[in-house]
């Protein structure tokens, strides 16, 4: 579903990124329609994280365009870039919670950072902590968890807190970097469920990168595969296990034999 002008929510064209002689993204083209949950799969080192970081502005690509709502992020003014990125929420692989703050303060930080930018008026610390308590409940945690420090939480709880912080600004684009990595299958399914709930509730467009095929099918309604910096397949997430593409099928079924070969560094 595109917007009324037929412009996809996120449009990426000819994205290139190399680190020294190592080409990580090699002309990636990708459209993500508004309201879509796109899952990007691919092996380690295929460029998934770099693609995500380019969109987030954490890495500057060497060439190409990244458009959000038709506005090129890479050539827009600083204030426009900030405004576009303010629409974004991000759940990092390890949660990336601030260890100098309590859990509640982590979520309240997201509340204050996003609200102050959007409306010009920053909620007070007390107000932000109250909102944070509600957000913690929304991801299935008791608000009393807010008083703990991040190091006192399990991996699954840290992911939930990271999710609460990511949705604090009511983002309309959400990114998930390997959301189930390091979690047991049940907790992985719980996190996936929370992600789907949050994305649906906010009406957001989502991009998730993952190795976990079960997670990919739970989170996504569209899917794409990156291999050696190129997008080699796009389709419905439900087709992932039976895509008809030899590389995708080898990857999703975890077969050793097939067109994908492992590169051993010398």
């Amino acid at each position, binding site marked *: 579903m595109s917007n009324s002008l037929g412009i996809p929510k996120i449009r990426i064209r000819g994205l290139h990124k190399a680190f020294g002689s190592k080409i990580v993204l090699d002309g990636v083209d990708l459209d993500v329609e508004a309201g879509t949950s796109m899952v990007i799969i691919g092996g380690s080192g295929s460029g998934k994280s770099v693609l995500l*970081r380019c969109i*987030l*502005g*954490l890495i500057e690509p060497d060439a190409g365009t990244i458009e959000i709502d038709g506005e090129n992020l890479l050539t827009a003014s600083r204030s426009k870039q*900030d405004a576009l*990125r*303010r629409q*974004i*929420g*991000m759940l*990092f*692989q*390890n949660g*990336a*919670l*601030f*260890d*100098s703050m309590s859990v509640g303060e982590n979520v309240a*930080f*997201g509340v204050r*950072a*996003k609200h102050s*930018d959007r409306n010009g008026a920053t909620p007070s610390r007390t107000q932000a902590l109250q909102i944070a308590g509600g957000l913690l409940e929304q991801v299935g945690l008791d608000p009393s968890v807010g008083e703990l420090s991040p190091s006192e939480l399990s991996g699954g709880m840290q992911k939930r807190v990271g999710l609460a*912080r990511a949705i604090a*600004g009511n983002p309309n684009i959400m990114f998930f970097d390997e959301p189930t990595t390091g979690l047991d299958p049940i907790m992985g399914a719980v996190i996936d469920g929370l992600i789907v709930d949050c994305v649906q509730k906010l009406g957001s467009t989502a991009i998730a990168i993952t190795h976990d095929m079960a997670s990919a099918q739970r989170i996504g309604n569209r899917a794409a595969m990156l291999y050696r910096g190129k997008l080699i397949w796009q389709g419905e997430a439900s087709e992932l296990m039976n895509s008809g593409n030899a590389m995708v099928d080898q990857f999703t079924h975890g077969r050793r034999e097939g067109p994908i070969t492992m590169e051993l560094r010398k």
Partner: protein
Amino acid sequence: MNAVLDPIAALGRAALGLIKQAGALALFALEALSHLVRPPFYWRIFFSSLIETGFFSLPVVALTALFSGAVIALQSYVGFGQYHVQSAIAGIVVLAVTRELGPVLAGLMVAGRVGAAMSAQIGTMRVTDQIDALTTLSTDPMKYLVTPRLLAGTLALPCLVLVADILGVMGGFTVSVAKLGFSPSTYITATLDSLKTMDVVVGLVKAAVFGFLIALLGCYNGYNSRGGAEGVGSATTAAVVGASILLLLFDYLLTDLFFSQ
């Protein structure tokens, strides 16, 4: 392999690397300073850094200054005894402490304590994606993490040095009166006669510069650390060693600037 050219090439590469590092450090400092005049300013981080740098460094700086003043008095007594000018001890102590030992020793202590902590904290945030998380939360990491620490370091060290000056002179006084048999009133009079406003002020200016450099090196190395725990460890070492070397270099430059005439 060329036995003549290879060492020269290696020297050239090292020099270029040093220039590149200096340029990157200068740009980092300029960017951080530019946030001082662009709101918002993170006062909570500033006050917390100020307390961490200033208040919690007080014991180590105080002890260092106290014993340094005492040692100078003792050493001067032995040395000056050969020329029968022991009466100059009070002047030597106050001159050495206010001009050099106060700022330099306090700076080195703070570099080891606070510079290392800043580097480790920011470095850990870097390798665990916390700095990237700040960016995704519409918060400029330079503005949030670096600028308040630079200001705190610049303001905290002069306060510490003022305390170090007083305690250093007190250390000299205590040893001179209790051990070397000086009259308290004579020693105090000699100290006050030798005490120059310019010496104290220049010491505080040095301290401000040292505080800035310590915070800058701590933040810069932490901010650019890579590669997990080992990277954070290397960054912390680089922060302390770099700050100590720069501190001594700037000590010479500032001494030359203010006192060479």
